[in-house]
């Protein structure tokens, strides 16, 4: 399922991580206790940060490849 192109693969990876983060966020929003809050901040926040960083890294990587060529 993952693309053979490194840039597209990174975008797919970023997308999958972000979808996981969004699912965690939506489940936590439906929850009401402190555990939901902690999961939102801890797990959701980490997944969001990782997904966005992978996306930004893919942009930097793509730019570096263009410069090499």
């Amino acid at each position, binding site marked *: 399922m993952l693309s053979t192109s490194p840039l597209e693969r990174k975008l*797919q990876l970023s997308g999958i991580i972000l979808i996981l983060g969004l699912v965690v966020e939506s489940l936590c929003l439906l929850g009401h206790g402190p555990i939901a809050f902690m999961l939102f901040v801890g797990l959701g926040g980490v997944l969001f940060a990782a997904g966005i960083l992978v996306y930004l890294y893919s942009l930097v990587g793509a730019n570096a490849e263009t410069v090499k060529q």
Partner: protein
Amino acid sequence: MPIFLILLLIVFSIFLIGVFVFRPQITSTRGGKMTAFLALFALPLLCLGMGTSSELEHAKSTEFCLSCHIMEPYGKTLRVDDPQHLAAAHFQNHRVPANEACYTCHTNYAMFGGIKAKFGGLRHIYVYYLGTPPAPENIKLYEPYNNRECLHCHAGARSFEEGAVHTADPDLLPAVKANKTSCISSGCHGVVHDVASLKDAKFWKGSN
């Protein structure tokens, strides 16, 4: 912001991100790149911001604070049918918003009070789940209750400034305002959350 709208935005974001997961080649066009930026950067940040705001708002609610088993007796003290009980009188007479009763009195009204309250809450969760929580009647404040939190609402109010007891001694109000005489521990408004005597208490049945 209603949770329903945030969930709708999340579903839309998941759909848009899903398009890039299954068809990453569409990023080869300019329009695809711009949409990818929207789907993989802007929308998730928006969802995170709105979700965080909603969660932080919910964390102020009385329901949230009382969702820990250890806090149940403190929730019951809000319904004690006795006007001498400070927390109960404030809660039942809407001197504090009933849905944010705990937060209103237990946040710090200094500049970073809200942030300090959140870190305090994280510490509570740590102690509750990973530490050894004390019995409800042994729970103590981290630091003595500051009059500033009372004066945030009461300062300037006629009932406070001109109350017979408050004005009987001309030195009292300046001392209270300077936090030298505590509203609570000086013996004037000492019954706040009397969890130890809940067994004998009468409770107000009204809804809030």
